[in-house]
């Protein structure tokens, strides 16, 4: 028992994947506990909603399990999981777009030009030069700025800044050339620079 346990702790992803391919649920659960927090954090930062993120994270691992035989050993399992997660986020954005046309009123933070009334209100309040920001307020400003980015730019910058992936790993995750990731991150940073200009020197 003890031997099995200590073996499991050091088991490589590759061998867990092989066992998973044979419907080994223990191996599956080990992979889940190894990657659930990373995937959840990424999906949470992509969607901005805890509930959506938890549902989507469940779905990521269900897909991992059912599609495990399609996993190619030349990629890392984490890259593959981020990829599944990113695709599921994109699907859910699309679904939401089609299903709810009237939600813009409930969600003033997400505006086409980033300068609607509610956005200005928040900005004015927090831009007062002498205001000291709490950690929470600052986080909200950053979340709002991320939410304003097109999902693919948001994904690139989150994978880099939050998940710590290198550019080539992001390219692999997104299935695009390295040059595309360079320009996505440039554009994301340029947009964030604009939205967060009042907090950059802090």
């Amino acid at each position, binding site marked *: 028992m003890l031997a099995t346990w200590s073996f499991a702790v050091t088991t490589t992803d590759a061998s867990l994947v092989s066992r998973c391919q044979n419907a080994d649920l223990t191996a599956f659960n080990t992979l889940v506990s190894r990657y659930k927090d990373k995937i959840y954090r990424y999906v949470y930062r992509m969607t901005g909603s805890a*509930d959506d993120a938890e549902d989507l994270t469940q779905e990521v691992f*269900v897909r991992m*399990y059912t599609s495990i035989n399609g996993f190619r050993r030349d990629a890392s399992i984490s890259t593959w999981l981020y990829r599944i997660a990113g695709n599921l986020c994109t699907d859910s954005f699309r679904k*939401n777009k089609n299903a709810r046309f009237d939600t813009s009123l*409930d969600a003033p933070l*997400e505006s086409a030009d980033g300068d609607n009334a509610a956005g200005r209100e928040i900005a004015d309040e927090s831009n007062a030069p002498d205001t000291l920001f709490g950690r929470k307020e600052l986080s909200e400003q950053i979340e709002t700025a991320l939410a304003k980015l097109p999902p693919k730019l948001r994904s690139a*910058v989150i994978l880099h800044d939050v998940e710590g992936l290198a550019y080539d790993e992001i390219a692999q995750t997104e299935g695009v050339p390295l040059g595309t990731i360079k320009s996505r991150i440039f554009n994301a*940073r340029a947009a964030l620079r604009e939205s*967060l200009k009042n907090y950059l020197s802090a």
Partner: protein
Amino acid sequence: MNEQSCQKIQPLLAPFVDSETSPQEREQVERHLQGCAVCQSIVDDFAATARLVSTLPTPTLSAGFEAALARRIADSSLAPKPVSLWNKLLAWWEDTAPNGVRVAPTFAVAAVMLLLIGLPTTWLLTGRNVPLGITKQVVATPTTDAASLVASDPAIAELWDEHRSFAAAQPLGDPAQSLGEEN
């Protein structure tokens, strides 16, 4: 610094901040920054945005997450889907082909399939399976055309257009909106 040299250097600024430049590119950027306050301020701001994003707190999954997932897998008698013929062929190619030839497994295997099954079927299969093969190839693409990277990237412009067109309809951070309702 003249505008032209700034334009040439700017696509390198994000990779510079993120330590993703080649040594030559890094030197090139550093030389430019010595004489250009504008680009230096972009570099400082880019670094600050990265710092801000990285300080976001890590969210915590609810305690029952793993149990719920394990139940879902067990209850619905889900099982890994079997490997397709296509994946078997790809795996075989990866394992057998010498290193130098492995760059384009998709196309090599596609050629075999073409002979075996005929064009229509191959088209369908390739359409579904091409991305991973492509990834492998394009990651190695040299980025010497860095100067035109941002300016001439219609894909980015398209992303922004697409985003603007439905941005208002996808309320990020709206807790009232849950996937569960959609399903």
